[in-house]
């Protein structure tokens, strides 16, 4: 059955004639399209889930809050001055700060590495195994594939981030207790307000990494070597952080992709300081838009010769 836009959908051709059959066609509509997109999304997300390598990576991410909490507990004299934006010193106050301290420690390298690894699997990985050519002749529109792959990467990363925060919070609460907590600016907020702030932090980091993911996807469309994608993406994040520490370059600091990442700490002030959160979000969205467009332009008419 064909409709205005000429799209057609066939659901097998079960019927009397084994091949032509009575072509039972579904009417093409928004619902069918959405269901098909969700199915593709599920498949992409599933690919991230079934890779043991990815779970090993999650294990590394989760080891940080555990090691951190245990170390602070056994050297319990509380002498932890001078690390991160003040979270490490607060760890013994409230278990929630273990999650925040772990985020602070993993933000410069481990989280970019995790993001780079799953971005590498999307296009470069599929080109490397040759599965990309079979996907495209199914057929699937290249733009649709790219967008859904991007969304699957974001959701997979969010999952890892939430796991990290939950594990950090759980071990922190077990070792140091929970209850109400003191923000970085000194006020008391309730436990549930603290949990809410923690979720806001995750959301903010997620938005920041949506920019990095777009860079990773773009690099992924340039090469057939997943490792090259990992190296290039991590290099971008690292070089950006290095440049961010050079005072002579202060005029470009605001444009660096990682410049606003640490601003998540501002969400733990009372009242919440949006001064650097808002530019952080705008910067990440700009990076996402630019590099997704570049990835689209590159992937859209790339010769698939692998």
């Amino acid at each position, binding site marked *: 059955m064909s409709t205005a836009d000429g799209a057609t959908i066939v659901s097998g051709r079960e019927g009397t004639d084994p091949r032509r059959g009575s072509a039972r066609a579904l009417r093409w509509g928004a619902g069918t399209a959405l269901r098909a997109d969700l199915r593709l999304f599920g*498949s992409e997300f599933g*690919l991230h889930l079934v890779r043991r390598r990815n779970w090993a990576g999650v294990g590394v991410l989760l080891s940080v809050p555990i090691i951190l909490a245990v170390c602070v507990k056994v050297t319990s004299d509380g002498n932890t001055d001078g690390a991160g934006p003040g979270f490490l010193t607060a760890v013994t106050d409230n278990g929630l700060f273990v999650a925040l301290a772990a985020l602070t420690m993993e933000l410069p390298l481990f989280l970019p590495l995790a993001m780079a690894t799953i971005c590498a699997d999307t296009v470069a990985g599929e080109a490397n195994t040759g599965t990309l050519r079979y996907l495209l002749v199914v057929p699937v529109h290249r733009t649709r594939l790219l967008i859904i792959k991007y969304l699957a990467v974001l959701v997979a990363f969010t999952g890892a981030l939430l796991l990290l925060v939950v594990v950090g919070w759980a071990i922190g609460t077990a070792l140091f207790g929970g209850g109400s907590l003191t923000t970085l600016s000194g006020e008391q907020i309730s436990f549930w307000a603290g949990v809410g702030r923690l979720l806001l932090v995750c959301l903010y980091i997620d938005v920041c990494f949506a920019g990095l993911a777009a860079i990773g996807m773009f690099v992924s469309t340039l090469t057939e070597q997943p490792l090259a994608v990992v190296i290039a993406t991590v290099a971008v994040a690292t070089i950006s952080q290095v440049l961010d520490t050079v005072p002579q370059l202060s005029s470009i600091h605001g444009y660096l992709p990682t410049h606003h990442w640490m601003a998540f700490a501002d969400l733990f002030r009372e009242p919440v300081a949006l001064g650097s959160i808002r530019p952080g979000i705008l910067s990440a969205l700009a990076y996402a838009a630019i590099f997704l467009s570049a990835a689209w332009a590159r992937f859209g008419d790339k010769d698939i010769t692998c």
Partner: protein
Amino acid sequence: MSVSSAVQAAGEADGGCAVRTHRLTKRFRSGQVAVNAVDLAVPRGSVYGFVGPNGSGKTTTIRMLLGLVRPTAGRHELLGLSMPRQAGRVLPAVGALVEGPAFHPYLSGPANLRRLDAVDRTADPRSAGPRIGAALERVGLSSAGNKRYRNYSLGMRQRLAIAAALLRPRDLLILDEPTNGLDPQGTREVRSLVTRLSQEGVTVMLSTHLLSEVEQVCTHVGVMRTGSLIAQSSLAQLRGSTATGVRVETSCPQAAAAVLIECGLGGVVPGPGVVQADLGPYEPEALVVALVRAEVPVRGFTCVQPTLEELFVSLTGEGFDVDG
């Protein structure tokens, strides 16, 4: 209208070609012209053998047909619809095998097929299970069960790729070396599968190096040589167009050669105990009479039809070097 009937209606307007290319050309960025102004015409319902030496541009042509590689010049239609503009409509009716199998190594065969089916927005998820089962059954992989793809043997991988091409009912199959890596049993099964599909009305275009395969299953052939299509016709026509030879076994080759030359035959080559010549327009019966009248002791007289292999070599040259 279903995909197949839409595609069919369009195809009939095209003089019944499942694949039609017009001066299709690919020049790679390296400057190499891998495919040069190729005009393929694969009739509907045919089994089209696409042959040529290594590096002659078969795979590159197939990639262009499927929209994986953008031609630098020329255009083409699949099932009567122009590519790549109508790829979304025509490719669901096309099953393809391109340069060997490729799957996710850490997924099982069925999981890999489920993945491919999930990508197809026009496939019904409810019928996925039975369709995957039927496709695996057709290539004899049902018993491989849930083994991971990385543990598959070469032949199993090849079979899985064919199963992927058969995941839905197709109108056209484009198979790049489908029997590569298969055991003799598997090769025979693929051959009979192709024949069966062809009987069901599917057009099959297969690239191969095995001329015996072409001889056994193909109705049409196209021969590539350094990027150009140097011959294309039905198998019967190709055979009809070639010169039949005669071969005379005799103890007096010189005398026999003299008689044949006298009769007007060309290409006479006397050898030890045998004379060969091109038959040309002459009647073999008359030649035998002439030989006997001249008292040449004839032990044997045969008309030789060149094998497809000889034909192929005469078209593509003797050299062992790859094209390119």
